[in-house]
């Protein structure tokens, strides 16, 4: 991931919506890879599929790698690995180590060639087959990946199920009927494995959709989201299934659930990929892993994210960005003193002053601390970056908390001018209109928030119902509140549902 991508993720971190990237597990002990007669809980792998009959391939030469063309950041490590592989031409581990390093630096095409050499030199080593498959998956070459995963399965010992999942995914991605049949069988076996069942049911659901078996697809995908309620891809597949069946309401609910966390899923730990990731300790890698950890939001993950970001400090390429992210991370951890410390450090980089102001202001706002200071920082952020929607929305909220409602409305309007889809700003304007008794204006503001459904929609609908009630349109108020309740339940937002339910009962009890 380039630092540009890291910056993109930062925007989400800044807004509190931590990026939902898959979290790479920390380096863990990986079995040696040379498995032979070791016992396995996984049933014996059947005979080789015809298309991947094991053979003794000729050892391909090392590809020419123009090490001098690499930038300083990666040149020394890659040069050393190339030299080692050249010096020990029959050493599979040397070739494999080079391939892993190239994979770590995302030189996938070259890595794939070097893995082929390692596979030929040591055909019984699961590592090279598995990582070669992973590399070809990253290259969007599922057929090549599948062949390598198939070779890895019988060698994988305790990790057989993980490798089998990768194989099933690759065969599904191949797209032809024969591969789909193979994937069906593989997912079928995995569906009995508790840790991989959700992923397996998702695969089975997609296969059923592919062959037009709506009932089977619905059943499988429902199992997937029951086992893994935040499984974004499974919710998306369900949405498409409902859409095909013409049930657009159900499709919209599934889409809204997907939007809560599009990349969340029951992703298994992958010790091989963790080992590859651990080959890099440069600033970008640390930061990337830190952001991935931040996405998890647990206390443990936040601690790890802080550790990785701290490690990236002092590196000229990413130090400023690390400071920015640490403002949010320490804010999340409740350590406002440290957050402030990194805010001050972030100000040293002239290019990120506006973001630093906004980032720290968000932390203060979330903790309801030093609200005047938060407001002042939002004002500085919007002055420096007048198209920063989040800063305008934050400024509006801060002004609301200080009772400066007219100015808050102006800030929300500015946010909407920059980004007409800024829902928080629209909701804020509706809130202010309600407060001033401009009920029709509030209704006009809230009506467009009815669709498309998203995680916050029940809240918007409930606000709309209260507006209708204030306007004396009790029937519409009841209908809208009921709609909000139903949607909150369908979205799995139990807290909101309980609240709306209680309010709805009060409303119904009133004459």
């Amino acid at each position, binding site marked *: *991931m*380039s*630092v*540009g*991508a890291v*910056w*993109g*993720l930062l925007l989400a971190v800044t807004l509190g919506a931590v990026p939902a990237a898959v979290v790479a597990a920390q380096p863990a002990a990986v079995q040696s890879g040379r498995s032979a007669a070791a016992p396995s809980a996984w049933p014996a792998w059947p005979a080789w599929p015809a298309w991947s009959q094991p053979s003794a391939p000729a050892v391909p030469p090392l590809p020419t790698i*123009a090490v*001098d*063309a*690499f*930038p300083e*950041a*990666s040149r020394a490590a*890659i040069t050393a690995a190339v030299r080692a592989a050249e010096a020990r031409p029959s050493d599979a581990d040397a070739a494999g180590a080079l391939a892993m390093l190239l994979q770590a*630096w*995302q*030189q996938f*095409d*070259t890595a794939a060639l070097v893995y082929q050499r390692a596979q030929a030199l040591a055909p019984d080593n699961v590592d090279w087959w598995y990582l070669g498959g992973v590399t070809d998956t*990253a290259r*969007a*070459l599922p*057929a090549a990946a599948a062949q390598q995963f198939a070779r890895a399965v019988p060698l994988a010992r305790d990790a057989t199920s993980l490798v089998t999942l990768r194989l099933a995914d690759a065969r599904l*991605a191949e*797209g*032809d*009927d*024969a591969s789909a049949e193979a994937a069906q069988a593989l997912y079928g076996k995995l569906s009995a494995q508790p840790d991989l069942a959700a992923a397996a049911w998702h695969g089975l659901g*997609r296969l059923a959709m*592919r062959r*037009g078996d709506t009932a089977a697809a619905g059943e499988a995908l429902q199992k997937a989201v029951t086992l893994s309620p935040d499984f*974004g*891809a499974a919710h*998306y*597949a369900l*949405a*498409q299934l409902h*859409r*095909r069946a013409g049930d*657009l309401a159900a499709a919209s609910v599934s*889409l809204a659930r997907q939007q809560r966390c*599009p*990349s969340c899923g029951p992703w298994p730990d992958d010790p091989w990929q963790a080992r590859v990731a651990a080959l890099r300790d*440069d600033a*970008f890698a640390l930061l990337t892993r830190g952001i991935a950890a931040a996405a998890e939001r647990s206390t443990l993950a936040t601690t790890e994210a802080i550790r990785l970001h701290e490690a990236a400090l002092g590196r000229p*390429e990413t130090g400023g960005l690390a400071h920015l992210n640490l403002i949010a991370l320490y804010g999340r951890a409740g350590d406002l003193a440290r957050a402030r410390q990194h805010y001050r450090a972030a100000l040293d980089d002239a*290019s*990120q002053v*506006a973001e630093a102001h906004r980032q720290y202001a968000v932390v203060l706002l979330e903790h309801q601390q030093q609200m005047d200071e938060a407001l002042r920082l939002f004002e500085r952020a919007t002055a*420096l*970056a007048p*198209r920063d929607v989040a800063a305008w929305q934050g400024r509006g909220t801060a002004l609301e908390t200080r009772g400066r409602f007219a100015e808050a409305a102006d800030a929300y309007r500015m946010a909407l001018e920059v*980004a*007409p*889809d800024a829902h928080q700003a629209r909701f804020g304007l509706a809130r202010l209109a309600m407060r001033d008794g401009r009920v029709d204006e509030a209704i006009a503001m809230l009506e*467009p928030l009815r*669709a*498309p459904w998203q995680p916050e929609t029940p809240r918007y609908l409930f606000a709309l119902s209260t507006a209708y009630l204030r306007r004396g349109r009790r029937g519409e108020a009841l209908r809208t509140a009921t709609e909000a309740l139903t949607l909150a339940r369908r979205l799995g937002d139990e807290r909101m549902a309980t609240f709306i339910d209680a309010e709805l009962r009060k409303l119904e009890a009133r004459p």
Partner: protein
Amino acid sequence: MTRSRGNRSVRVARVRLALPLLVAGAWLGVGLGEAPRGQEAGPAPWFEDVTATAGLAFVHRNGARGAFRIQEIIGAGVGLLDYDNDGDLDIIAVQGGETVASTEGVSAAAREPMARLFRNDLRIDAAGARVWRFVDVTAHAGFGAHGDGMGVAVGDYDGDGFVDVYLTSDGPNALYRNRGDGRFEDVTARAGVADPRWSASAAFVDIDADGDLDLFVTNYLDVTAASTRPCFEPAGARDYCPPNRYRSVPDRLFRNRGDGTFEDVSETAGILRAFGNGLGVSIGDYDLDGRLDIFVANDATPNQLWRNLGGGRFEDIGPLSGAAFNALGRPEGSMGIASGDADADGDEDLVVTNIAGEGFVLYANDGRAGFDDRRADIGLAQTTASMTGFGVGWLDGDSDGVADLLAVNGAVTLVPELRGQAVPYRQRNQLFRGELRRGGAATGGPTSAAASATSGGATGTRWRLEEVRGATAGPAFAPLAVSRGLAIGDLDNDGRPDAVISANGGPLRLLRNTAATDHGWLGLDLRQPGPNHYAVGATVVVDAGPAAGRLFRVRTDGSYLSASDARVLVGLGEHRGDIGVAIRWPDGSSQQLTMAPGRYVQVEKPRR
């Protein structure tokens, strides 16, 4: 019957032959049943690069000076239009690279215009062969706008019978009205369409069905000085930033008031309610409700499908439709769009070009604007996995009646294999031959086991795209370039689609169709009274030959930053007899005609 259009008189007839090439005072068209060329058997490349021999000299400047401004790697496009109404397609190429820094101290007169216009001086030699020749007429045309040009849209917005030009850039866009005398005048200010945002593709379309052409403009990113932090590729070299480094900006919809001015109706139309990093746009009636919808390809953000609700209102059904994401519900780095009825089931499918590692996607339409991601099933995923695709378009390269696909590619971040080279972003372009199977009978590509092992669409029709490489593709597909724009059209009116490809920081390339085939064809040039003179948005369905039942639309939009031939060109394969043609005009009225193949026919919409 004649009526005046500008300074010309145009004959109006219910059905008549299109204006053929005027050569030495004689009309010279392709006769009925006459195969224009390529009678001889044996493999021959489908395309030949005739850029040099045709005198087409244009090199795009991207303004790259080591600062890695993202604008440098995005443009630019190319358009086809018959600006002088002489019956053949001319070429407009968008120029980039003009920045404040690069033009400091350079007088306005010395600065290069944002587009160059090349007149098609096609002629037929004594042996009857078509001789291609393009002449740079930019100076006379009068394109005066300067800036970092991006895209081009063409359309007769004022209904005077002459095609006008809209140029997008990373600053204010420009609308040039075709005066009909070979000159264009900048009417941007008066028309009110100078969107100051960084715009990419644009499309002229009569979106409100009031008879004139409106304008949809995609906008890409908000790149401010504050957001120009350096980015690096995975191995640590300085490189262009990905789009998520910047903020998205909303697209724009301009309604044509019919008096030479436009009204920005983006807000009232509802299209500000969702937006991403817009790059490509295509217009079609994806839910077959008779109203034109808008599909926008966004880079690294969800695509939008603006369903036309009527009354000037739109709703984004992209996520619900299935065309906003990949099969896992994740947005992709989408750039170009080819909209067309690939599987000949009567609705328009979408091919969207994506960034390397994703593969191009075919979204198969179920006729209700529900799309299924079939990239793997049809053979597109693996062959495009390593490509970063931009311009793309359907064409029938061998006139066999089955849709083929042309895609032009070029990376936006360093290609590791080209590390250390002067331009480490180059890739090759790709040609795909379509194979369509109805009830087990194949048309189009080879009947290999690989080709037949495909999954089918909902109608039982099976189709597949197979990349054409080697001798059949020809040397025209060998060079590496940072290709961006692609415009498809029949530049020599021989019934075979040709192509023009623009390259970032490289030369424009002209590919002449040289497919050796005696397949039949029919060309349709639709005209109608009123401002939408060229009937943009009309559809055509033929009733015979291998393309029977396939929906064709009159459009110039789609691809990437580019504008293609509006005429409908139908490959007829071995079919030799008359063809029944069903036309649905933009106002919803229908017309049925029978025509002889092997020529272009200009069809005038009957007056009611």
